[in-house]
């Protein structure tokens, strides 16, 4: 809301400059978004929160300034209306009382509609409202001044009595801005015997507008159902100064006063006389809430040493009524003013006191008390641990979008039925929730491969399944790595990661998986539990993403991994007895797996290790390959004798025959 400072000064005398005023408002809860200048006038553009419609008015803002600066609030002098000599029929039937439970109505005749006096024109325009004519301007002026919107109809353009009701489907009205609107069912409208004359609460009808030809007006000051106003506003995409107020919890009882104020100003500037009784209806009343305020509790809650007098002053300056209780010196009975329908519990009063007292005057004290022993951090701690390990292994962390598109899903072989769809997306780029991390990582890979030769990326984040558990979709966290490194280098990263996490018993079993090239993929297991997959990404997927280099992928289930990760370390004592090493050279068929070969060697615990140090194959060997294996013989409790070593060698040799391996 725009507040021209010179207008504000009509309701409170203060000597702060614009910046200081802005600061004072900001600290007490009214944010100044911009400070504007128009010739000599300085205008504050305020952000008003939805719970404070009372500050959508000059008086409301002035009251805030008054509370903080402790200067007196000057309310406008509202005179009683002169008696009416005419009694024009003024008839408003309300079909559903809920739609407009409270209102005031009066007719004013013999008016001269023309230009507004410059003081009204300037104030309105500085507040961001265009000047139309003196009558319309005054309705807007009082709306801005008191926060109560109202509407003036040209009495003579209305045929017969007025009815306020709910719109039926597809009714139409042309509003003041000459736009023809088809109304949603349920919108509040006012009609005469022939036509719709008002889109109530949002904008008046063009057919009943006040212009130079108007001589008699019907002034209507209503309170509407805020929910209906807001819904209508949203559906039509129409928001006005009036609807912005009507959709909130306005003061239910100022409509009559606002009517008097507007009428006075109209009589002053447009002449004329009151031509009917003033009709005032108050079907909806709210009892003003009274709360018990204990000063000790205020001090304790805010953490400040504030006196009863100061508390009383603050609340009074905000319009609250204070009563003391006989014999109870720490207690005040506080009644909220009509315009503060947001006050309901004593904490609301603590807020009023705190914000005017100034939150920056509250000393900051760190909380004391028992520190809970929290075990839940373990998952997040593990996340950080994994990320640090991957960083040291040369991988760069990415955060990618959890929302994805059909295009990316198709490219990465995700079925549409397997992904959750947003019902109100902004664009097709962000229409589905990702089912895996790979899609985003491949997009990033392609982008980076334009600039870099080698890339190693990872993400640890949520993926989303369509399956529901406890009311929400399953959304486990996954860890996915993509790299241009070879499969075996990635396998090395996997092994290093697991070693660092204290996970032994890692096992890879060949498998066939979507997205991974057959024959180059494996399931990752820990103690028979499936923990993830590793392999080369299929060429058709790489092609779909425009990636020209081979890419390997490792995907792990984070929560499953967490079950096995440990930071316990157990020391193994160093060997006390010497080892003997021996090399074996074998010829095996090409299909024989390395794992099978090495497990053939491990036929005795005294064969402490067996490692491949060389592999070789060429055309002359046909369907065979040559493997060099270095074996270490070592016993924990004694030095091995040549006879023992001989026996171990025998064991190996006979074990190797089952592999159809030839020793060279």
């Amino acid at each position, binding site marked *: 809301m725009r507040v021209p400072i010179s207008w504000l000064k009509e309701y409170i005398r203060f000597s702060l400059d614009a910046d200081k005023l802005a600061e004072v408002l900001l600290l007490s809860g*009214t944010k100044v978004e911009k400070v504007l200048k128009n010739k000599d006038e300085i205008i504050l553009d305020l952000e008003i929160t939805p719970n404070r419609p009372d500050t959508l008015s000059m008086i409301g803002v002035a009251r805030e300034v008054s509370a903080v600066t402790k200067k007196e609030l000057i309310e406008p002098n509202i005179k009683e209306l002169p008696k009416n000599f005419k009694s024009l029929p003024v008839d408003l039937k309300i079909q559903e009382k809920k739609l407009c439970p409270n209102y005031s109505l009066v007719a004013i005749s013999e008016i001269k509609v023309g230009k507004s006096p410059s003081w009204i024109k300037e104030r309105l325009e500085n507040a961001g409202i265009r000047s139309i004519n003196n009558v319309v301007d005054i309705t807007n002026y009082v709306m801005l001044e008191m926060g109560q919107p109202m509407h003036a109809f040209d009495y003579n353009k209305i045929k017969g009595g007025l009815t306020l009701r709910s719109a039926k489907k597809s009714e139409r009205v042309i509003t003041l801005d000459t736009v023809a609107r088809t109304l949603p069912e349920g919108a509040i409208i006012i009609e005469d015997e022939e036509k719709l004359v008002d889109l109530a609460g949002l904008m008046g009808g063009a057919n009943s507008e006040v212009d130079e030809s108007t001589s008699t007006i019907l002034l209507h000051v209503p309170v509407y159902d*805020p929910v209906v106003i807001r819904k209508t506003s949203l559906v039509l995409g129409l928001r006005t100064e009036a609807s912005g107020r009507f959709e909130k919890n306005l003061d239910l009882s100022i409509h009559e006063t606002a009517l008097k104020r507007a009428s006075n100003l109209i009589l002053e500037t447009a002449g004329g006389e009151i031509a009917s009784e003033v009709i005032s209806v108050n079907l909806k009343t709210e009892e003003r809430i009274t709360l018990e305020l204990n000063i000790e509790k205020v001090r304790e809650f805010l953490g400040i040493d504030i006196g009863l007098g100061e508390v009383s002053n603050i609340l009074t300056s905000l319009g609250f009524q204070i009563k003391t209780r006989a014999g109870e010196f720490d207690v005040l009975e506080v009644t909220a003013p009509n315009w503060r329908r947001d006050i309901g519990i004593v904490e609301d009063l603590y807020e009023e006191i705190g*914000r005017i007292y100034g939150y920056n005057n509250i000393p*900051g004290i760190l909380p004391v008390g028992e520190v809970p022993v929290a*075990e839940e951090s373990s998952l*997040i701690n593990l996340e950080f641990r994994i990320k640090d390990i991957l960083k040291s292994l040369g991988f760069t962390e990415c955060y990618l979008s959890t929302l994805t598109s059909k295009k990316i899903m198709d490219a990465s072989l995700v079925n549409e039925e397997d992904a959750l769809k*947003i*019902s109100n997306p902004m664009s097709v780029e962000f229409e589905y929730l990702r089912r895996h991390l790979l899609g985003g990582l491949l997009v990033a890979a392609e982008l980076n491969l334009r600039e870099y030769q080698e890339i190693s990326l990872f993400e640890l*984040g949520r993926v989303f399944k369509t399956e529901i558990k406890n009311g929400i979709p399953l*959304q486990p966290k996954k860890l996915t790595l993509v790299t241009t490194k070879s499969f075996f280098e990635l396998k090395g990263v996997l092994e290093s990661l697991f070693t660092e996490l204290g996970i032994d018993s890692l096992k890879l079993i060949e498998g066939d998986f979507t997205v991974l090239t057959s024959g180059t993929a494996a399931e990752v297991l820990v103690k028979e539990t499936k923990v993830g997959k590793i392999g080369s990404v299929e060429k058709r997927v790489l092609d779909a993403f425009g990636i020209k280099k081979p890419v390997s992928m490792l995907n792990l289930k984070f929560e499953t991994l967490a079950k096995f990760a440990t930071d316990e370390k157990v020391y193994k004592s160093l060997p006390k007895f010497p080892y003997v090493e021996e090399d074996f050279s074998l010829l095996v068929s090409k299909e024989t797996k390395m794992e099978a070969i090495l497990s053939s060697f491990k036929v005795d615990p005294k064969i402490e290790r067996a490692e491949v140090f060389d592999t070789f194959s060429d055309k002359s060997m046909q369907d065979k390959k040559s493997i060099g294996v270095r074996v270490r013989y070592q016993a924990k409790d004694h030095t091995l004798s040549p006879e023992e070593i001989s026996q171990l060698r025998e064991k190996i040799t006979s074990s190797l025959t089952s592999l159809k391996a030839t020793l060279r």
Partner: protein
Amino acid sequence: MNLKQIRKQFFSDLQKISTLEQLEEARVKYFGRKQGLITKVADELPKLRLEEKRKVGSELNEIKKELLEALESSKSTLSTKSGEESIDITYPSIKPSLGHLHPITLVIGEIKEAFHYLGFSFIDGPEAELDLYNFQQLRISKDHPARDLQQTYYLNENLLLRTHTSSMQVRFMETHKPPIRVMFPGRVYRRDQIDATHLPSFYQIEGLQVDENINMSNLIGVLNYFAKRIFGKEAKIRVYGHHFPYTEPSVEIEVYYPKIKKWVEILGAGMVHPEVLKNGGIDPKKYRGWAFGMGADRIAMIKYGIDDIRLLYSGDLRFGEQF
């Protein structure tokens, strides 16, 4: 010159020698076949009488040995220092490949560490969430502006993508009794036009403390502590009134960041509304709580001077490897 003088001269010369060439010159000067000083003495030896010959001879041998050893020793020292093994130290290094953590991870890590000292645990919760936890339990009624289709991504009538980490407050309280000290970092979603400061999803961190005797002063104390830990000990905070349906009082905090000499708005906070405590199964007459929520992206952008939020989610290595 007698032998003693030659020896003295030799060692004085040796002091001034710094190259192999100079050393060779010295060797020639003293041991050169025709003119070497020692050689000359050796040449005179036959002309001496027997007794003299024996005396000078042995002295000559000693000094010859000493000088030759000194020459050898100098030679090996000068060899290693001069040019045989020297390298161009400005040549590019062979760098081990180093990975990088994402700036948001770094920010969350810093905050985690800061609050670790205060005994806070860290938990992340669901992103596809029930309307119940995201809105209803936080006193955001069905007609509240925040519920607009314009601002929230919905999966269906009851499921949405959480718009703030505050959705964790009641979820957590339902299954935990005070004292509660917990932080919830995580992704949240807003339906916004995409530009340099808005994306469909970003990161927030929520803090929550519930205990007996918690008050506004504690909230301000914790926020002060947070500002100084994350933005340096010269950082200051400024607290001003605001409104959230789930806190009462509600405030917003600006932090003065000395490095850029600016005040930046980074978080909203307040005392947990008694109704929210009740929704979490906690008796508001006995316990009070404070809560705050901040944008991790925003903090990363401020701390690292990043000007476009889209970079944070691009996966671009030219960006990522700067951290």
